[in-house]
């Protein structure tokens, strides 16, 4: 699976386990992202931007704690995306 799609999917599922279906609703508000369920994710356009947009969307509503959650969620995928292609907000 494309590492960006995997990252996005993992983040949405993790957020879902904390706040429920609102996580999917919010994800759909991000430009370039279309989500059916946590497993059904479509990205169009610049993947790095979409990933960043997703993290920011959650941060806007839920604050800093949600950024930490995003970072934890993509831990298994960190080695699949080169550091330069990772949005700053997700860098450790």
């Amino acid at each position, binding site marked *: 699976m494309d590492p960006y799609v995997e990252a996005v999917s993992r983040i949405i*599922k993790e957020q879902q*386990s*904390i*706040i429920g279906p609102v996580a999917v609703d919010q994800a759909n508000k991000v430009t370039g992202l279309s989500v059916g369920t946590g497993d059904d994710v479509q990205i169009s356009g610049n993947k790095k931007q979409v990933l960043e947009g997703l993290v920011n969307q959650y941060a806007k*509503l*839920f*604050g800093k*704690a*949600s950024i*930490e*959650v995003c970072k934890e969620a993509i831990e298994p995928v960190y080695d699949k995306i080169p550091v330069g292609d990772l949005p700053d907000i997700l860098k450790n």
Partner: protein
Amino acid sequence: MVSEDKIRVFLKLQQLALDIEESTKLLEQFLPAVLQDLNLAGSQYIFLAALFIDDSGNIKQTFFTDKSNNQTAGQVTKPENFLQKGSEWEMKVMYGEAAVISDVAYFINPAYPEISKIHSLLMLPIQHAQKLSGVLILARSKTADQISAEEIEFGEMITRLVNLSFRLQDTEGSLTKITQQVYEMNAKLHQLDKLKDDFVSVASHELRTPMTAIRSYVWMALHRSDVPLSQKLEKYLYRTLVSTERLISLVNDMLNVSRIESGHIEINPQSFDIVALVRDIMEEVKVKADEKRLQLLTLEQKLPPVFADSDKVHEILLNLIGNAMKFCYPGGTIAVSFFTDGQMVDISIKDSGAGIMKDDLSKLFHKFSRLDNSYTAVSTSGGTGLGLYISKSLIDLMHGKIWVTSEGVDKGATFSFSLPIASQQVLQHAEQFQVKAKGEVKPLEPATI
């Protein structure tokens, strides 16, 4: 009476206030638009300021906007002067009236570059819930005597919009704060839940090694002893063995309960032959049943396939048949029968054993339900107290029902559960019967009899 084009401006601004998405910074975006539109309509205001007070009359927030839009109310004006107690304007505003002030220098920082253009100030009360919640200040280029009733009336209309926006922003701010707090608490709970799961897993795993060792050596002492065992010794060892097995079952059950409650159990339904499954299980338990001289009967019947997760049904059957064997007297019978109404298949496990008192029937499917020992003494091996709870939880996940009937003490008991038939309708909505695990999928620990 306010003119038509001023009303148009008002409606436009009202819509703008409602349309602004970023409500936590509403006033910062809204007020400059207000000033701009007022001036486009011909008002000639140099700046617009809004002060909001709390219940004690102290200023809690200020807003300021002028052409350059990069200064604050505190820099340009002396906000406390606007609400100076006992002053002529303060009393007017307290009564809900507009005040027009000529003594501009008293209120404005002389360093303000536009000060020479300001010749009067229009102070309007901002009301909320019939109380004064703040003041709107419009810096006019015209002099105090050059003011019309229309201007004041229009200004009053504008204060309502400013109030609306302030309330929206405030509510949004509160909501955001609350949302963030709730999120943080949920995140913590989620974390604790994960830790608890890890702990339960590790603890169970660590417990099992010594338990397996105890059970193994007690078994050896009983069955591979190099010296003959006295009756007493045999009894002691036997009871130790039974207790250890109970302990192992308990750890397995607790692990299962933890996994079910945390949503780590998946339900993957398929169509299968329930009668065949029952037949297999009866084979599985035959050895144990023979040990206790129990008769096993399966009243077979031609049935359509059911739609459920066969692994989980396997566990439930083992639990119910295992219970039946525990509570049956030696020489007794356990019979499994089926019934269908075309939609569901009911599977009933009837035993000829100790039975259950009517009052106790409802207690059975809860965790660690303990029945009065007086009539359950036949079950020396006991159960963990969790088996029925686990069975019920699994049945609930599979959209079935589980229930028990008994004529009373020593009259046996019948435990039944139902599963949906794999009809066209059911198969079409197969996804509704699927249950996905939250996070990691975990298996069920095997049921022991």
